[in-house]
């Protein structure tokens, strides 16, 4: 892993030592493809015309030798060995017409392509690293001048803003400090208070409608608000055990009655 680039270059020079090199250290190779590539180099032919059969042979011999030497082989080396043994047998036997998969020749061609591609990428990597590099061969500005970021905030105000502000101040007395206009809102608190006061008069079942406050039927909004507030209040009082509440059927009038002994 830690092997550096130059060493890979030296490998091809050390072809005559290849046999030893192969046996000595599996970890010296970055995987079975790497090993195959260095083996194929010793065939000294165009990678596209490489004899995959020979290559498979070499590889299997290597794996066997390694076993004899009790070198632990990584799983992917063994998988590759198995695959190459399979490929080798396929290459040696006449093609089986019933076989649907790729032909042995196709598989061999693909392996050759993989080897060629790996070799090409190695070469490309070498050429890339041989380029002039920043900080080694050419240099950036050593004394950069910082760009200062100026954030300029301008405040705007127009005469009309000013006049509006003043007008607002001068007419403030006429302002009502309300967040929300509540003229038409009857609150649940109000309703609760009202109903509690009337509780003593609700001995019989009576329609809730009858308990709505006077003067709250002017607009639909008033009516809705008063009804909703009283309904909520009634629910609350029922929960507290002060009232009984019933409804004959859906949309029928709600009726209430004070609960005996539950007055509070």
């Amino acid at each position, binding site marked *: 892993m830690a092997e550096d680039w130059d060493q890979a270059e030296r490998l091809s020079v050390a072809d005559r030592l290849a046999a030893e090199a192969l046996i000595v250290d599996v970890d010296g190779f970055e995987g079975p493809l790497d090993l195959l590539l260095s083996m194929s180099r010793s065939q000294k032919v165009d990678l596209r015309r490489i004899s995959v059969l020979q290559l498979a042979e070499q590889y299997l011999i290597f794996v066997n030798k390694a076993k004899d030497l009790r070198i632990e082989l990584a799983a992917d080396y063994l998988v590759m060995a198995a695959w190459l043994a399979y490929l080798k047998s396929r290459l040696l036997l006449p093609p089986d017409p019933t076989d649907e998969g790729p032909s042995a020749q196709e598989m061999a061609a693909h392996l050759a392509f993989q080897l060629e591609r790996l070799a090409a990428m190695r070469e490309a990597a070498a050429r890339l690293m041989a380029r002039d590099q920043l900080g080694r061969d050419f*240099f*950036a500005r050593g004394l950069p001048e910082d760009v200062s970021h100026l954030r300029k905030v301008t*405040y705007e105000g127009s005469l009309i803003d000013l006049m*509006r502000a003043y007008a607002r101040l001068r007419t403030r007395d*006429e*302002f009502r400090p309300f967040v929300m206009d509540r003229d038409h809102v009857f609150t649940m608190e109000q309703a609760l208070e009202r109903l509690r006061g009337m509780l003593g008069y609700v001995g019989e079942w009576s329609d809730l409608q009858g308990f709505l406050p006077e003067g709250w039927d002017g607009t639909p909004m008033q009516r809705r608000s008063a009804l909703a507030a009283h309904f909520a209040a009634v629910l609350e009082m029922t929960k507290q055990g002060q009232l009984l509440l019933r409804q004959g059927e859906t949309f029928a009038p709600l009726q209430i009655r004070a609960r005996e002994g539950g007055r509070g």
Partner: protein
Amino acid sequence: MSEREQSLFDAPPMGEQERMVEAILFASAEPVTLAELASRMPHGCDAAEAVAHVQKRYEGRGVRLHQVGTAWAFRTAPDLGYLMQKESLEARKLSRAAIETLAIVAYHQPVTRAEIEEIRGVAVSRGTVDQLLELDWIRLGRRRMTPGRPVTFVVTEQFLDHFGLESARDLPGLKDLRAAGLLDNRPLPDPNAIPSEEDEGATDQADMFEE
């Protein structure tokens, strides 16, 4: 002449020496002395002469060769310094507290802080006054000859300028405001009009106010 030198000292031609000076000075993190230049250039080079050439070459350019003591460095031409700043302009509306305070100063000047507070109905934060002072829209006027001799505020020329007024007397009067519909009857109830919020909420208010 450079040929003569080259034959005598085996030094690179002067044009080449210029390139070296350019490269060394460009890449160096600090100004480089002539002595150091000479020590880094090949034997026989005349660093001083090369520097002189380079200096001449960059005359009037966007960067210049600048002498710092006995050392040299490239520097941006002074007239282009403004390019070294990235400006971002941000226009903001004044906070409601600020615009109200400003309006009161404009309509009532000279006015004391206590008077401003009385009119606005809330305390005036120091930040608001400082902001208006910083904007050069208000300034301190004479002290009021009353107990405590409080300072007063008046609006400035810049204020008049900004708001397109010739003098503070040109400010529209209440009548004009009414005529312009700004004072008419009861303004719509509107949450922005709540006077209860203090200056602390100035930012929030400003946001609300910008609506």
